[in-house]
């Protein structure tokens, strides 16, 4: 029987115009509800007829979810703010450039015009077995095809794998962790604010989702404190293509460096595990040391401790080691600059 892959399954489309209404609708529909932000992740699932939600809650009409606002201590970015707006926002470019850089490396210009920051951090895994609808652990099944003896797992996890070996594909997530961002959630119990790194979870906590949002929950905003504004940032993404590609691995760091060495630092990588990893051990090891290639070497080695390669992803170990080394050691990233028409 032919599998129909070009028509979305029927669903009820609801388009609330306030956070309160969206929250109520999601609460009402629970497991049957599907949150639609920019649609860049959702439409793949829907058009492939793999996910078949009964009700799609479209957030695009909620004005209060959009835009960048100043707060008493930093900025608040609405979850429905597009990546293009994030990239172009003057305050983000000036003070939180790490986020602008990471967002600018997401996918392609067309996708960034439509994709949202909330969507980018909440997107699902891109494991090609899971995405093709294979009944794996993450899909509620009882097997991991990527980690099978002949599984193809070039883009999969080297750290913290637990049955599932898929990775988190977000570029903005590690930048937000490095900036010590706070994620604002709306739940039936009211507003809840969590640290960026606590928004993401691995398969040991819930194998079917990459973040803590439960049915009925909504990510409404991301707050960035001024703690790391204007500090020394490093972001590098390694991908197969120079545009329109998910990361093989990325690294984001924010550092305050003085004559006596690295005073403060936050560093995170993504593409290595099911959640973006904040490298606390690396931060502790390099604090007080000079930002030098030698410190970078130590940091790189420490970062990949405990990494377990699968058959085809061993390259991610030296890749992660070297990206962390560059971020800490102050080595310039590749000089290649995409032609941007200017």
């Amino acid at each position, binding site marked *: 029987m032919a599998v129909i892959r070009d028509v979305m399954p029927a669903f009820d489309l609801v388009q609330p115009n306030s956070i309160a209404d969206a929250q109520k609708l999601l609460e009402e529909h629970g497991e049957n509800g599907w949150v639609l932000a920019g649609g860049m992740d959702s439409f793949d699932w829907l058009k492939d007829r793999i996910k078949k939600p009964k009700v799609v809650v479209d957030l695009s009409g909620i004005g209060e979810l959009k835009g960048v606002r100043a707060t008493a201590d930093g900025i608040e970015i609405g979850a429905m703010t597009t990546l293009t707006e994030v990239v172009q926002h003057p305050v983000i470019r000036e003070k939180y450039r790490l986020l602008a850089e990471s967002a600018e490396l997401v996918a392609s210009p067309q996708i960034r015009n439509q994709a949202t920051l909330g969507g980018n951090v909440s997107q699902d895994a891109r494991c090609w077995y899971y995405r093709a609808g294979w009944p794996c652990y993450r899909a509620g099944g009882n097997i991991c095809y990527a980690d099978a003896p002949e599984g193809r797992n070039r883009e999969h996890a080297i750290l913290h794998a637990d049955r599932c070996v898929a990775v988190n594909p977000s570029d903005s997530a590690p930048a937000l962790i490095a900036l010590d961002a706070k994620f604002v959630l709306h739940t039936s119990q009211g507003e809840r604010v969590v640290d960026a790194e606590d928004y993401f979870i691995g398969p040991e906590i819930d194998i079917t989702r990459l973040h803590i949002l439960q049915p009925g929950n909504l990510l409404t905003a991301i707050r960035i404190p001024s703690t790391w504004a204007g500090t020394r940032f490093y972001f590098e993404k*390694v991908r197969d293509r120079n545009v329109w590609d998910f990361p093989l691995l990325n690294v984001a760091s924010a550092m305050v460096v003085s004559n006596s060495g690295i005073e403060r630092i936050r560093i995170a990588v993504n593409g290595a595990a099911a959640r973006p990893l904040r490298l606390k051990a690396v931060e502790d090891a390099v604090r007080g040391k000079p930002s030098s290639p030698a410190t970078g070497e130590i940091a790189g080695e420490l970062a990949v401790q405990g990494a377990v390669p699968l058959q085809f992803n061993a390259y991610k170990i030296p890749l992660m080691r070297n990206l962390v080394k560059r971020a800490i050691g102050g080595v310039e990233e590749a000089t290649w600059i995409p032609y941007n028409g200017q």
Partner: protein
Amino acid sequence: MVANERVSRKGGGASMTLAQAAQYAIQLGGIYDGHEASVDLNRVTKASLAALAGQGLVAAAKDNYPRDGTTFSYVASFAEIEVDEETGKYYIVDFLAYADVGSVIHPRALGGQVLGRSVLGIGHAIGQKWVYDPHYGAMLSTRFYQNKPPTILDVPVDMQWAALDIPDPETPVGARGVGEPPVGGGCASILNALSDALGDEIFRRAPVNADTILTSLEAGHPMQHPLMAHI
């Protein structure tokens, strides 16, 4: 003369519509409506003609220019790459394709063909792949973000092409076809540049991505079998 959907005698006079011409051809039959074929036509052309016979004004002919052997087009491709040894990522910084395709009839069309097809070949080298799960026999790289055809940002901003423009005596107008030759050149020039930069043994395969380069550099010897390039 054929103009304004009518057929007329040269210099004016009698004319008829295309439909009337077709009707007249069918009345005349023989060589006019395809029932009679020139003896030197190819077997397949004759079969096609027979299938169309009697349906209108049908004509088929074959050129009888002298020809000694067959003709081929050639392209010599040159690529310069920069490899980041810490990430395995490489960038194509310069590219030139030199074509030997007989007379150049339409330079812009030829340039588009040569560079366009070179990009296809570059795509084969830098990552366009077809990944199967060998256990289940299932295609895995079913999406363009997984199969990864090259983008405009994957090729040098200023790609160059040139042609020798030497007429081919064996073809009616001195030109030869071009289309596929730049594909092989585009692919091989990238792989040869990689071999030149990093060593022969590792890159006798396509595609080559950061993973292949980095694991091989790390181990000091090839880590992926050439026949398992599509992973």
